[in-house]
């Protein structure tokens, strides 16, 4: 731990000014140069009156300069999820000035970070607990959700990272990356860890392995992610003399095959990181065998609660409160744990928390099911619904028993694991689940399977009889009419509004009247109109009084009668 330095001391402490901080644009940057760069930009940002700087940097060194310059003037660092102006626009209320190393395309306004000249500079002492940054993550609704951090939590995380990686990675190693520092993982591992541990930041973020492999990687650390590590392609094995000291991956669990391929190609161990924007690093594991358990980060205490959901207290969280993740885990014998499912899909049904992933996993264990998607549907209340791809035997049962009874069989099957709330009430059986290009389920298509749009909204027209005065229509009120929903539960009758609406629509069609909706009308309901019955609708246009007279009859008994105002053309 003694090798760690605080950011405050880096800027104003008595340390070796010639020490290497970063390599950017092919040039080495020393502590002395960093201090000059921070000073000149802090002065510029202060002059611009910046309070909340939107930091977008392509190069990690310039992200350091922008961040420390903002801290120097007491401004907040606002880090958008990516460098697109769309991401920045979505959080427009959170920042007042764009701070960048290069202006993003199409952007003409902003503060461009510049190189500090030699000579005297003035830097202030900083309190890390009061240096604030805001990062963003995708909330459950897809809207950016802000997460606040302070410099001291980032320094504490860097110290913990040093504890797990310090032995493996030489002290003067360079830290390369294929991930951006705009996200927390990159910020922690590609920016803060080298900066606080005295290693050298490599500025660029490499999009292509080919570019990175031309660098001198001997003894280096490479901060990467499954996106890159599962796409190594046909790169040649790295020569022994150029082998990095370790590979890092975070973001999602790395498939075993990709982990093996990466370790082989680079000839180096791979450390996987598990965490989130909110929590920072939660756990790590050296990926040396099939199911290596995760070990909690130094300082992080884990707890496995109801529903196998992981909770933790951590020095990287803003307070000592337990943080509840939405990940399901099982404990390992030697203090670690295994992730069972990243489960951010928890809904409340009848006041009970239900994990959609869990229900899906359990459903798939039925011999009748080959795949399933479970989701909440807002009906009168939130109900659970399931879309199922039947297995071969499931398809056979569907033919034999029908959809209803197979759905009931599956509910019965789920009863072994789930309470009533966790058992889907409505079922659809499909050939395959609707997915988009990314392989993600399309929720709107799933929900459409349950929509009422397939049901009739008008009675079926059986006969039309024309008179001089108007028209008589024989109509069958289908028991499936969509209008029957929600009006009179348990007592299906055709609502009056529907009857008026139909009179207007059918008059427009059969009498060529220029009306779309009834704005002024009189109506009298003599008898109930029931679904499943044949009725006669009489329509007559009274041109003089500008009205449409209508009446519904059943066996010569008047059910409903009224008049609707017809506007003049």
């Amino acid at each position, binding site marked *: 731990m003694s090798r760690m330095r605080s950011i405050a001391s880096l800027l104003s402490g008595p340390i070796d000014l010639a020490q290497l901080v970063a390599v950017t644009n092919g040039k080495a940057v020393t502590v002395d140069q960093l201090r000059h760069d921070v000073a000149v930009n802090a002065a510029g940002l202060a002059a611009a009156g910046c309070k909340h700087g939107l930091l977008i940097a392509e190069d990690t060194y310039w992200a350091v300069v922008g961040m420390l310059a903002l801290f120097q003037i007491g401004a907040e660092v606002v880090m958008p999820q990516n460098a697109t102006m769309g991401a920045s626009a979505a959080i427009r209320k959170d920042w007042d000035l764009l701070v960048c190393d290069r202006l993003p395309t199409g952007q003409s306004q902003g503060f461009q970070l510049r190189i500090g000249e030699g000579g005297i500079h003035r830097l202030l002492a900083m309190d890390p607990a009061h240096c604030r940054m805001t990062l963003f993550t995708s909330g459950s609704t897809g809207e950016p959700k802000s997460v606040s951090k302070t410099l001291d939590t980032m320094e504490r995380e860097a110290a913990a990272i040093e504890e797990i990686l310090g032995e493996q990675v030489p002290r003067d190693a360079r830290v390369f990356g294929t991930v951006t520092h705009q996200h927390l993982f990159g910020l922690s591992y590609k920016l803060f860890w080298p900066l606080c541990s005295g290693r050298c930041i490599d500025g660029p973020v490499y999009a292509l392995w080919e570019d990175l492999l031309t660098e001198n990687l001997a003894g280096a650390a490479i901060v990467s992610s499954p996106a890159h590590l599962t796409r190594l392609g046909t790169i040649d094995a790295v020569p022994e003399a150029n082998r990095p000291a370790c590979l890092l991956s975070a973001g999602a669990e790395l498939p075993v095959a990709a982990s093996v391929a990466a370790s082989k190609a680079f000839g180096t161990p791979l450390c996987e990181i598990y965490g989130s924007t909110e929590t920072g690093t939660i756990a790590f594991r050296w990926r040396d065998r099939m199911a290596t358990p995760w070990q909690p980060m130094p300082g992080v205490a884990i707890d496995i609660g109801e529903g196998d959901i992981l909770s933790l207290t951590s020095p990287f969280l803003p307070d000592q409160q337990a943080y509840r993740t939405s990940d399901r885990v099982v404990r390992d014998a030697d203090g670690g744990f295994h992730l069972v499912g990243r489960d951010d899909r928890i809904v409340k049904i009848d006041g009970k928390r239900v994990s959609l992933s869990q229900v899906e996993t359990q459903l798939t264990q039925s011999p009748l099911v080959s795949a399933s998607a479970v989701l909440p549907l807002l009906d009168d209340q939130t109900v659970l619904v399931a879309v199922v791809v039947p297995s071969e035997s499931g398809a056979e049962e569907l033919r034999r028993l*029908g*959809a*209803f*009874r197979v*759905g*009931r*069989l599956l*509910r*019965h099957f789920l*009863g072994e694991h789930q309470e*009533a709330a966790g*058992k889907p*009430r*409505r*079922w659809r059986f499909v050939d395959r689940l609707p997915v988009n290009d990314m392989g993600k389920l399309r929720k709107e298509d799933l929900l459409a399977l349950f929509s009422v749009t397939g049901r009739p909204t008008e009675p079926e027209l059986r006969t039309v009889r024309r008179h001089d005065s108007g028209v008589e229509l024989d109509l069958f009120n289908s028991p499936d009419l969509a209008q029957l929903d929600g009006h009179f539960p*348990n007592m*299906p009758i055709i609502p009056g509004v529907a009857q008026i609406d139909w009179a207007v629509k059918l008059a427009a069609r059969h009498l060529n009247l220029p009306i779309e909706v009834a704005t002024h009308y009189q109506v009298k309901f003599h008898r109930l109109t029931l679904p499943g019955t044949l009725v006669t609708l009489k329509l007559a246009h009274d041109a003089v009084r500008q009205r449409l007279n209508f009446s519904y009859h059943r066996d010569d008994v008047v059910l409903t009668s009224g008049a609707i105002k017809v506007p003049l053309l």
Partner: protein
Amino acid sequence: MDDLERDIKALIIDALKLEDIQPDDIDSREMLFGTGLGLDSIDALELGIALRKHYGLRIETITDEVKGHFASVRSLAAFVQDQRKRDGGADAVA
């Protein structure tokens, strides 16, 4: 009796919002709960409410006797007729 059984089947489908099933698909003698029609405790709750509303049945507490009435459409129909007789033939709200 057949009409009443058919009404009860329609009521079950309507009250429980059962899909992909018609009154004729339900056998009057098959078990409503468990292995037969596969209704469960929440369904029983909702069916009880619907029966009270529709036929004016008084089901105060779930006793073993009541459970017997709920065994099948046929036993429910018998239960409804029995209560109607006791109430002096007063018909239910339709």
